[in-house]
Structures are given as structure tokens and as C-alpha cells.
């Protein structure tokens, strides 16, 4: 008879053969799992978390002499690109301890033959994404597939938390728990500001009926060093900008000292430009540098990742596309270009280097303008003080719930009371009311709460208390749609003779005319034509090119980082320059102090300047660009209630600008106090922002997830075209005929919460109540104001109607045309 010690003994023996010894946190993880507990293992960087989770179930299988047969461990990964690498690592451990289990992956990339085989018989360990797990529930006899399941491990849980994919996973986990009571669930996470909450969400929230989870801190990080690249001559250093290319030469010097570097940028456009600049500056490196971002074709990216593993690159320019994943051990240099934006993210990036034994991790931060040096110093301090961002989980995403219900209906069918209990066991739907749930049932069976509005609707049918989808076409289309929570409106970029280069946002391509040249995937490409959601291109020569602006990646500066910046600025106002990065821009900071003042947590700085354009007001709450956008619109609207004037708005992570050409009275402290009141905030913001239109745009994802629109079959051209309707039209239609539709409500809520960060905006106003207001009237733009003026976000004041906006846009076009005619 095997004894309980066998499994762990095999693990120890394998570790010993490798010359490793298990870390205490790994032992804790194994013991906790073997006690049947659930929990969360977290550490700032890679460092052995996977084994801490994986060897729990593996060692127990060894104890029991488990010969397999059926699924034992479900391993959830947020990125399908990670699945194969993970499988390799898990198999290696199985070989090491001598357990004969199959490890397979099942993602959107898995071929149909493999998937069909898996539907008949799952391997002992399956690595899959939330979408693919959800799809497994949509096939008949779903519960049987999971009857031997012993553990669920969720890798990179911090990536899923706070997203709708995370909510989808919560629902799937609740479904599994209901069928396998006491099922242990383990999460692996990077450092977060809300780890307890992260664990509670994973384990089923307050009402999960689970014993308290075990929170296990991984090994404390290797030494992580954050260093800002300080320019030699500050007077030539830009006050504004977002490329950082002025620092190209010192960065090249730094790369030259190392072996393999990852150079992170904040946007794909920036990555393209840096890649181009490096390639131009160092022709001799041309085969040793690579470009990696989310729009580049997957096969090219995989080749590049392999090259990184093999140490074939000197430098890979990348975006958040390389934030996750297994480590590339040759990497010994990490560079961050531009604002770090958040503490956790910067540290995660720093942790991508130095995986050789004994090596430390360092990240070199390259500021793109002067003030970013303060952010870099702030990031270092916040990290040292343990101030890391939280990721708030989402709640009551009815679109995801509706999708889940239909998924179950497509599979074995569901009974309403049981499914309601499961949903309420999740954190996301713990507060789901009976009315909301009934609405969801109505939505999938009758189209909506008011039956007369949906004649001939047919989707889910209730029969004797069981909800089912009986139509095979419907079932097929639903499965097709389940994989699309994340997908965006992307166009393929291809050469005419085949040869896919990647994908690009449709909105960018829509602005191009055939013959235009743009920079993509490190190449200058000329657009030939657009057909069937594909942009056909050829290589272009020597003409100045546009750089695509991708939508993603415009993260706002985090509160933790912004507040630390304010602390540093307060020190600076007192003459204290203790960080070398801050010292480096002393001149700039003194100009700011001299002409105006510095903001801090205790004082809100408001500058007023005049120029030929009119009157400018600059406010510096340091609350991130999203909250500033909301605040700017709110102030413009409230000002518009006092006197007739229209405003142009500009925002960045530090503050906002309001510009008006109208004659306006000076505003005194009392006026600002009234303008900045948190009272009737939501009503005013909604009035100010033309929220209807924002919600209409937001509705696109909601309509897709809830199955209100059908996107067609990916890559199948026109199939399904008759079924397509634009989500915008649908929003208008629902708004007119079914205004109480709960998904419209959700769209409005998402606009407030996610798009405008209303919580943060409220915090700004509440803080302002206690802050001293410092009103200054500098003669010229100050170093803080200047970037706002430069980056005059071609923003509109959204209180304008469509009519005015279109009129203004056509006017612009006319002017432009006149100017061209004048030139000719």
C-alpha cells in the first residue's frame, strides 16, 4: 500500500536530482492542497508559483497510485499563447516525479480533430482558457466530463480579475463546484493591492460556502532596481512629448552592455517607432532586433518568442504583449519607455530580467518628457512602501450571465432555481436580484420582458422546468460567439499573394486611402485595397509614413503612483530633492515653482493663462486621464451654465485644460469651490457627456457577448451576413421600443464606472473640498501646462449635438480644402 508520504517523497527526490530544494511557500502550497483547501499563491514575479500549485494534486495522485482516466486537473490560462509553454513545463514536472498523466491544451488554436477527441475523453490535465472552458459546458453530458476533477488552477488570475472574462470564469467555477462540492481551486497571481479580495472572488465570494482560503506569499522578490535614465542636458529635454526618442543613444549604449534586452513601450505605435529608430541607428543589429505586439501575426510572434528563449536577440521591442508568460532566461536587460503608469505593472516588467541564479532585476526607465522622471522616482518609492494597485472585480455583468445561461441551455439544459443559486454563489452575481434574473430568463426565452415587442423570437425554450436550445443552427452560432468576449474589430493585414502580417484596428484603416503608407510590424507598407475585412498591402519605399494609433494600451496613471508623485512634488516645494531623477530636472521644477506653484495632496493647483487662442484654465488633480476627461467635461458644462461659452478640452494624466475664445469673467476661489462640488455629480456628468452616445459605443461589446448581434464566422467572409445588424442601430432600436432593457442600463453603468472612472472623479472632488485651492496666473505656459497645450487632445465638448459637431467637422474639411486650393 502506498503511504501518504510517497507523493511528496517523489517530489523531493526530483528536486534533489535537479539540485533544487523546495521553497517554504511551495511546501505550504502542497500541504494546503493536500488538506483539501483552496487559496491564492502570489508573488511579484515568476519564481516557482506554478510548481507550488501543480505538485499538490500531482503528489496526491502519486499517493493514491492514480492511473488516470478522466480529467483530474483543470489549468486555466488567460492567454492561449501561453498554453503550449505551460503544457511543456507541467509535463517536465510529471516526468520528473514519474506520474503517467496526459497533459493537453484546448484553446481557440486547437484543431477540430483534437477537440472532438477531447470531447469523448479528456486528458488527466487540461490547459485551457475561460472561453474554451465555457464551451466545454455547451456540449451534452458536460457534468460527466468533470466527475473526476480534483483541482482547478487559475494561472495569472490578476489578469482575469476585473475583466468580463474573469466573470465568465467565476460562473464556470460555480458550475463546477456545484457538481464537485469541495473542489479545491487555486489561483496564481502577481502582487495586487487587493489580494484578499482577489482570493475571495476566485473562491466564490462571501457566500461560496468554502472554508477560508489560504493566502500564500511566494518568495520575496529578488532585488528589484528602478533607475531613471537622466538626460545630460535638461535644457534640451522636452517638456512634452510621448516618444522618448531623444534618449535613443544612451539606450543603445545600455543595450550594448547587455546580452538580451526587452524594451517595453506603452503603445503599439510607440513600439513601431522605437523599432524603426533602433533599426536605422544600428544597421549592424538588424538581425538581432525584433518587434512584438498584439497586432503582429501570431506565428511571427511565436517565432520571436522562440528566438528570445534561444538568446538569438539583442533587443525585442514590445508592448504589454510580453508582460505575461513564461520567462525568457537569456533576458538580462529591461527597458521601459515612457510613463510606468502603474507600480505593479512596472515591477512585473522589471521581473522579466535576471532569471539566472543570483542575478538581480533592474529596469531602466526612459522618460519621454521631463515630468516622467518624477513618476519613475515615485514608482520606486511606492514599490518600496508596498503601495500597489488594486484590481476591482466586476459585478452584475448581465451580458456575461445571459451568455452563460444560453451556453448551459445549448448543453444539457438548466433548471432556473439551481442556476440562480450557482450564480449567487459567485462574487459577481452575489447581489443578483430575482427581478434581474427573471429579466435574463425572459431575454433568452422571449427576447425581452415585454413579449409583444419580440414577435416570432426564438432562442431558448422552457419545457417542464428545463431550459434548452433545440435548434442546431442556434447552438452552432452561440458556440461561435462564446469565444469572442475579447475580440475587437480587427482587420487582417496581408500581402496580395497570401502572407499574413497581422491585424490592425478597422478604425485606423478606415482613415487610409489606397496609396497611403503606414508603419506596421516594423515595415513601411502601402495600402493597395481593402476587401472582406482584409487590408491588402505591399512594401513601400522611402515615403514618410503614418503610424497606426491602436485603441488599446491607453492606461491612466494609477492612483498609487499619482499620489506618490504628489508627495514628491510637495517635498520639492520645500526644497527637498532626494531622488536623483528629481534632482535631474530641478531646473524644470524651479521654473514651475517660479512661475506658478506645485500641486500636492493638500493643494489643488489651478492656473489661468491667456493666449491668442483665448483664456486657458489648467487644473492639476493628478487623477489619471480618464477621470480628467470626465472632470473637464463636467467643469465645461457647469461653466456653460454660468455664462455662454464653448470650450476645447485637453487632458493628460496630470491634469486638464479648458480653453475658450469667449470673453469670460475671472473665477475666484468661491467660484471654483462651487464648480468642484461633488453634489449631483452623476447627473451633471451624464448631462455633460452626451452619455447616450458613449453608452451606444459601449454597447457594442455588450450586444456581442449577450448574443444580441451575430458577428459572422471569423475568416469565412460573407457567411452569416444576413444575420448582421450593427450594435449602434440596435442600441437606438432598443432605446426606442424597449427603454427599460437592462442591457442598456448596463452600458450606461459601464460608461460611468469603466470609461469615466466616476469613482476616481468623485474622489478628486471630495479631496478638493479639503484642499487649498492655489490660483495662479502665469504669463506663459508653465512646464506642467505646456504638455497639455501641446497635446491639445483633439477633443470635443460633448455637450454639443450631432448637428453642431457635423457642422463643425464639415467646416474643418472646407477650410482644409480651401487651404489646399490656395497652395495649388
Amino acid at each position: 500500500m502506498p503511504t501518504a508520504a510517497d507523493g511528496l517523497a517523489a517530489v523531493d527526490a526530483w528536486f534533489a536530482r535537479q539540485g533544487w530544494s523546495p521553497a517554504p511557500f511551495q511546501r505550504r502550497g502542497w500541504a494546503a492542497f493536500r488538506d483539501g483547501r483552496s487559496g491564492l499563491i502570489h508573488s511579484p514575479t515568476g519564481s516557482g508559483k506554478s510548481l507550488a500549485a501543480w505538485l499538490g494534486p500531482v503528489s496526491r495522485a502519486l499517493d493514491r497510485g492514480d492511473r488516470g482516466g478522466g480529467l483530474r486537473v483543470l489549468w486555466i490560462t488567460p492567454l492561449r499563447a501561453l498554453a503550449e509553454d505551460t503544457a511543456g513545463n507541467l509535463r517536465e514536472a510529471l516526468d520528473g516525479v514519474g506520474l503517467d498523466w496526459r497533459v493537453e491544451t484546448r484553446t481557440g488554436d486547437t484543431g477540430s480533430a483534437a477537440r472532438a477527441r477531447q470531447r469523448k475523453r479528456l486528458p488527466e490535465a487540461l490547459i485551457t482558457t475561460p472561453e474554451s472552458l465555457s464551451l466545454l459546458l455547451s456540449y451534452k453530458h458536460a457534468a460527466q466530463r468533470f466527475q473526476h476533477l480534483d483541482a482547478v488552477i487559475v494561472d495569472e488570475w490578476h489578469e482575469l480579475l476585473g475583466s468580463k472574462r474573469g466573470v465568465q470564469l467565476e460562473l464556470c467555477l460555480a458550475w463546477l463546484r456545484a457538481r464537485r462540492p469541495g473542489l479545491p481551486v487555486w489561483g496564481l497571481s502577481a502582487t495586487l493591492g487587493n489580494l484578499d479580495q482577489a482570493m475571495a472572488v476566485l473562491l466564490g465570494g462571501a457566500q461560496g460556502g468554502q472554508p477560508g482560503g489560504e493566502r500564500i506569499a511566494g518568495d520575496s522578490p529578488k532585488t528589484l532596481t528602478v533607475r531613471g535614465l537622466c538626460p545630460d542636458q535638461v535644457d534640451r529635454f522636452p517638456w512634452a512629448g510621448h516618444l522618448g526618442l531623444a534618449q535613443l543613444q544612451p539606450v543603445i549604449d545600455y543595450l550594448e552592455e547587455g546580452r538580451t534586452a526587452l524594451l517595453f513601450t506603452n503603445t503599439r505605435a510607440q513600439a513601431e517607432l522605437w523599432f524603426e529608430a533602433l533599426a536605422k541607428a544600428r544597421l549592424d543589429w538588424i538581425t538581432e532586433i525584433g518587434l512584438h505586439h498584439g497586432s503582429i501575426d501570431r506565428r511571427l510572434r511565436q517565432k520571436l518568442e522562440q528566438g528570445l528563449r534561444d538568446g538569438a536577440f539583442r533587443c525585442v521591442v514590445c508592448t504589454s504583449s510580453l508582460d505575461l508568460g513564461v520567462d525568457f532566461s537569456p533576458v538580462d536587460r529591461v527597458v521601459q519607455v515612457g510613463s510606468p503608469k502603474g507600480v505593479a505593472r512596472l515591477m512585473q516588467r522589471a521581473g522579466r530580467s535576471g532569471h539566472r541564479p543570483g542575478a538581480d532585476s533592474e529596469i531602466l526607465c526612459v522618460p519621454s518628457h521631463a515630468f516622467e522622471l518624477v513618476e519613475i522616482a515615485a514608482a520606486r518609492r511606492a514599490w518600496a512602501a508596498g503601495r500597489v494597485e488594486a484590481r476591482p472585480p466586476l459585478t452584475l455583468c448581465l451580458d456575461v450571465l445571459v451568455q452563460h445561461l444560453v451556453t448551459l441551455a445549448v448543453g444539457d439544459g438548466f433548471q432556473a432555481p439551481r442556476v440562480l443559486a450557482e450564480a449567487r454563489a459567485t462574487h459577481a452575481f452575489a447581489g443578483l436580484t430575482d427581478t434581474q434574473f427573471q429579466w435574463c430568463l425572459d431575454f433568452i426565452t422571449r427576447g425581452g420582458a415585454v413579449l409583444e415587442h419580440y414577435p416570432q423570437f426564438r432562442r431558448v425554450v422552457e419545457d417542464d422546468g428545463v431550459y434548452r436550445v433545440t435548434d442546431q443552427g442556434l447552438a452552432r452560432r452561440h458556440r461561435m460567439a462564446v469565444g469572442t468576449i475579447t475580440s475587437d474589430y480587427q482587420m487582417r493585414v496581408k500581402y496580395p499573394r497570401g502572407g499574413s502580417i497581422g491585424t490592425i484596428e478597422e478604425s485606423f484603416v478606415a482613415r487610409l486611402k489606397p496609396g497611403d503608407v503606414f508603419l506596421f510590424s516594423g515595415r513601411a507598407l502601402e495600402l493597395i485595397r481593402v476587401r472582406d475585412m482584409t487590408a491588402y498591402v505591399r512594401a513601400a519605399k522611402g515615403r514618410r509614413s503614418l503610424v497606426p494609433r491602436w485603441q488599446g494600451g491607453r492606461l491612466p496613471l494609477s492612483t498609487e503612483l499619482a499620489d506618490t508623485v504628489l508627495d514628491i512634488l510637495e517635498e520639492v516645494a520645500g526644497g527637498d530633492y532626494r531622488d536623483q531623477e528629481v534632482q535631474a530636472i530641478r531646473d524644470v521644477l524651479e521654473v514651475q515653482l517660479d512661475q506658478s506653484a506645485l500641486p500636492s495632496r493638500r493643494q489643488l493647483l489651478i492656473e489661468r493663462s491667456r493666449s491668442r487662442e483665448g483664456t486657458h484654465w489648467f487644473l492639476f488633480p493628478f487623477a489619471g486621464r480618464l477621470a480628467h476627461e470626465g472632470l473637464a467635461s463636467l467643469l465645461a458644462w457647469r461653466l456653460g451654465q454660468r455664462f455662454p461659452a464653448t470650450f476645447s478640452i485637453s487632458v493628460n494624466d496630470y491634469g486638464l485644460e479648458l480653453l475658450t475664445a469667449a470673453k469670460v469673467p475671472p473665477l475666484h476661489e468661491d467660484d471654483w469651490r462651487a464648480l468642484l462640488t461633488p453634489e449631483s455629480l452623476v447627473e451633471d456628468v451624464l448631462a455633460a457627456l452626451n452619455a447616450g452616445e458613449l453608452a451606444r459605443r459601449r454597447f457594442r461589446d455588450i450586444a456581442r457577448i449577450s448574443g444580441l448581434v451575430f458577428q459572422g464566422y471569423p475568416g469565412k467572409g460573407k457567411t452569416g451576413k444576413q444575420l448582421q445588424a450593427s450594435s449602434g442601430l440596435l442600441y437606438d432600436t432598443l432605446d426606442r421600443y424597449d427603454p427599460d432593457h437592462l442591457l442598456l442600463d448596463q452600458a450606461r453603468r459601464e460608461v460611468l464606472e469603466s470609461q469615466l472612472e466616476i469613482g476616481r472623479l468623485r474622489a478628486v472632488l471630495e479631496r478638493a473640498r479639503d484642499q487649498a485651492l492655489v490660483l495662479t496666473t502665469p504669463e506663459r505656459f508653465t512646464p506642467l501646462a505646456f504638455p497639455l497645450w501641446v497635446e491639445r487632445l483633439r477633443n470635443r465638448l460633448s455637450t454639443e449635438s450631432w448637428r453642431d459637431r457635423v457642422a463643425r467637422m464639415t467646416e474643418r474639411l472646407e477650410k482644409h480644402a480651401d487651404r489646399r486650393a490656395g497652395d495649388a
Partner: protein
Amino acid sequence: MSDSLALTLAGETVWLHGDRALFYPGDSALLVADTHFGKGAFLRRRGLAVPGGESRADLDRLSILIEHFQPARLIVLGDFFHHRPSRGEPFLDAWPAWRARHALLTPEVVIGNHDRHAEGLDLDMIWHSHLDLGPFRLVHDPYPVSGRHVLGGHLHPAYRLHGGADSVRAPVFWLREGVTVLPAFGGLTGGWPIRPARGEKVVMALDGDLYPLP
């Protein structure tokens, strides 16, 4: 900006209307394209929860246009139906009353690709493969024809207007050499983004108003 706009096409005056219609006074004909009646019901039968009412609203918009222009003929440039209507469909319920309200008009349709589904339905309408009217050739799919100015639909032309970070997308009339493409009339129809070539004109139809773009 206004709700209608007079133009000269092939030497004849026509009126564009912001509710996505074209009126040709020469023959007192009101033209719309791509009504796609019954699209909502079709989507609902396939599990997409689109509320009803759009077909009725489209008929009401058509009534207002008829009262405004008092045309002698009403011609739909194809894709009158989205799909074959099935029994109990709201459009079929609304149609007889609407016909009675405009008893003097017999709607005419230039057959479009979607209309093949309507074969054999008795709706008391006139179906044409194409139709010549003054200097115009009326068709569904707007290919140029020598010697005639083509008026067609089929494409659902739409255009995105940019001004800085702001943009608005709306259906358009697309005025090309020898061909004028009407925007889709149906309330639930989507748009196909066009790229006007040099010398072509675009007139945007947004919320009932027209905006000629320079």
C-alpha cells in the same frame, strides 16, 4: 444643412431628402432603396432579440415622405424584403392598412438580391427587373450603363466623417460619374463604408437632415 437638397443629375432636377429618399419631379416619382422589410423578424426567428416596431416605423417614415412629395409613383430600388416574410410577421399585419392609406399608389420594386425570397407572394405590387425613367436607369445593383444615369441601391453606402478625435458615421448618397447610389432606407440596415474617389460627391443623411460634404 437642411432636410432636402435639389441637384441636377443628367440634366434633370432631383431632390434628395434627409430621410434617405430621392424625389424625381419629372415623373413625380419617389425613390427609396433597400427597405429590408422584415429584417427584425428574421433576426428574432434566429435568436437575436431585436425588438419589433422597425418595419412599422419605416412605413410611417415612408408615409410622411409620400405626404410631403405627393408622388404619382413610389419605387423601391430593390431589397424590399430582407427575407421571405413568414406568417404572423408584423410587416404583413401592417401592410394592408398602409396600402389602404395610400390607395392611389401601387408600389413598384426593382428586384434586388434579397427579393428572390418574395417570389410567389401576393402583395399587389409591381416588380421590375429594371426601369427607365427620363434619362435614368433604375436598378438595384448600381453598375454604370452607357447613355443613362443609373440610380441604384444595394451598397448601403455610409461614410465616416472625422474632425480631430471626433467622428460620426452615417448613411450617404454617393454621387458618382453616371451613377447615383441611394442610402439604405430600412431602419435596421447597416452601412458599407465607401471611399469616394476624386470628383465624386457625398451627401450625408443624419437624423433626417442632409449634409453635403465638400
